[in-house]
């Protein structure tokens, strides 16, 4: 699996459908990998892979829904487009609840499938980007000393230097130094930007 190039992973136990979908996607310019079962897919699964999964709902052994669960547990970011011959409502609800990207019934119209695949790949790209940013922010946060971290929390809560010094039992001058370090380490040019970064990591002010 190429981790950099978006790939459409087609998992379907019925070979003619699997091949037809693969051919359609290739014709539309996608990179496609096909698997005849959930197990075959899992055997080659690379968590870093990008793209999306086109998954048959009813398969012997491990079903589509079960594969979705397994992938979710492993923290996969790959969006899943379900294909099903008989679109039963309970199953589609369950699939969507668990974050399915789309739920299409067979026979599927080519445009519908391609639109869904494009959207899924785009979504995957966005999610991956966001994930990358998040981990960048987290990495910066990790470089802060405990004192600087405390100061950060007071700053994003909108506290003045004087107030912070009071709360920490220190002088305003010291707070200023810490604050400068925080801004520098986090790469924020303004308090507003600092607030935006910390919010994305779920850190609130004190």
């Amino acid at each position, binding site marked *: 699996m190429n981790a950099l190039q978006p790939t459409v992973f087609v998992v379907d*136990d*019925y070979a*003619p*459908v699997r*091949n*037809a*979908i693969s*051919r*359609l996607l290739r*014709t*539309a310019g996608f990179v496609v990998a096909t698997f005849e079962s959930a197990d075959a897919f899992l055997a080659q699964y690379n968590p870093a892979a990008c793209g999306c999964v086109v998954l048959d709902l*009813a*398969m*012997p052994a491990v*079903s589509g829904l079960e594969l979705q669960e397994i992938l979710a547990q492993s923290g996969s970011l790959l969006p899943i487009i379900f294909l099903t*011959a*008989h679109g039963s409502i309970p199953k589609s609800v369950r699939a969507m609840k668990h974050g399915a990207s789309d739920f299409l019934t*067979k*026979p*599927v*119209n*080519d445009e519908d*499938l391609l639109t869904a695949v494009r959207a899924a790949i785009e979504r995957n790209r966005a999610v991956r980007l966001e994930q990358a940013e998040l981990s960048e922010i987290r990495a910066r946060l990790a470089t802060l000393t405990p004192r600087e971290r405390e100061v950060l929390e007071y700053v994003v809560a909108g506290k003045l230097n004087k107030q912070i010094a009071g709360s920490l039992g220190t002088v305003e001058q010291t707070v200023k130094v810490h604050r400068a370090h925080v801004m520098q380490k986090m790469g924020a040019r303004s308090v507003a930007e600092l607030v935006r970064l910390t919010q994305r990591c779920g850190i609130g002010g004190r």
Partner: protein
Amino acid sequence: MSWVTALWSMNAAACLTLAGFYLAVWCKQRQSPFYLLFSCSAIAAAAISLFELWMLNSRTVDQYQPLVRWIHVPTWALTLSFVAFVRLYLHAGRTWLIWSIYGLRTLVLILNFIFPVSINFTAITDVRQFSWGGQMVSVPVGTPNPWGLLSNVSLLLLLIFAVDAAIVVWRRGDRRRALLVGGSMIFGGVLAWHVPLVIWGVIDVPFFLGFTYSAIVAAMGYELSNDVARAAGLVREVEISEKRLNLAADSANVGMWEWDIVRDEIWITDKGRAMFGFDSVEKIDFHLFRSRLHPEDRESVLKAVENSLATGESYESQYRVLLPSGELRWIAGRGQVEFDRERRPVRMHGASLDITTRKQAEEQAERQRNEMAHLSRVTMLGELSGSIAHELNLPLSAILTNAQTAQRILRSDGADLGEVREILQEIVSEDRRASDAIRRLRLWLTKREVQQHSLRINKVVRDVLKLIRSDLVNQKVEVETELTPNLPAVIGDPIQLQQILLNLVVNACDAMASCPTSERRLIIRTGIENGSRAITVSITDQGHGIPEKNMEHVFEPFFTTKEKGMGLGLSVCRTIIAAHRGTLWATNNSERGATFHFRLPMTAPKKKEAIDNIGSS
């Protein structure tokens, strides 16, 4: 005529009469040679009487001498034929005694013709005449031949033979015959001793050897009259039993018939004539009978007849006849062939029964069974509609995607026609798959006559699994098949057999619905039942089994443990299997779950090749 002449002549006449009777009896019953033997002995006895009469009336030595010698010829014939007669008629008498008597008697005959005069005399000097009972009779005077003792020894052996045979017959329990035949034989054997006594001059009587046989003549005459009386009784009994038989046959609607194969004439009771639409005087031959047969059944009847004629097995056949009035009747025929000694069929007799009513009832029952089966099939199909839709959806899905891809390729610049060709290939094969599924459905849904195909049960199993595949996937039931390869064919309706299997598979899946998915395992086995000509199929589930008290009830109509469902499935299955001359039953597994089994009779192996390809689809 003197009374002596009259008496000796009468004796001869009596012997000849009886000989004639028995000769006539033998002509009718060639398989009983003892009648001929008796006839011969009686003729010999008559000859002896005539010789004696001649001797009694001889006046000179020259006249007397040749008679004394030649009388030994009928005596020899009498001894030989009578001993053989006793042996065959009474089934008694020791073999070594018989051969001793034959040997000795023949030796006596030979010596008789070697000696100058006879075995009895070395010389006859005179013929003495004396008055006996008022009549003048002649006796020889001469020197007795010592070799004459041989003749006496043979007479002694004959007596021993007679006594021994009589004892054997008496012990066997046939006392009447022992007394009659044995007794008269002994009487004759004792009386014959007057001959040496006369020759040795001990007593002075004429020879009356011919009369020693009269007791036997009387005994056999009595036997004959007995036989005649018994035969008359038998004729009457036969007439009575024939009347009874006809009465029974008529009241049972059975037509009795007899076919004289040599003359090709068929005799048949009036009931039978009416059955086949023959009028009461019409002469019937096989060709006419054949013309009454329904064209479709003609061949099978002829085959059955030919088989009986060739093998001697009893004839049995069920067929339709078309009466001149246009009426159609069902007849069940049964018969036996009689053969002559060269194993040529000469006669065939049997009975025909009008089974039209029964056949109509059977047909009615079959129609009802069919409708029931059809109804149950339609119901089951309704329950499986998801699976069937899936079966159609898959190929349609592949076709649509392929077709749209091809459109895309053709729209693009520099279209890859190789790819398009591949796509079209797939579209064709998927279309076939879809139409196969539709054809199967149509077979399932059509109400039709029961087919009698020869088919392979393994193929039926595979077809059913194809039909229900997606249901099994959805229900997460894992199917294991243990199909014995190259099983002989069974005769049956492919759709109905599929229906049974499908029903059992669906039931097995339902039985496992509450089990964890990893334990939902279904095993289908096919095989040959040990020691019988039957194919067995079993479907084993891992469910909760059947409570023992319900084991038989599950096959009853309207018995169900499911929330939905009429409880007709298994009862219909059992009816279908019974119509295939098979059985359906259930057992609980030793560990868990239940197994449903059915057994179907195999077809005869010789027909195997012809049928194989019909199968089911």
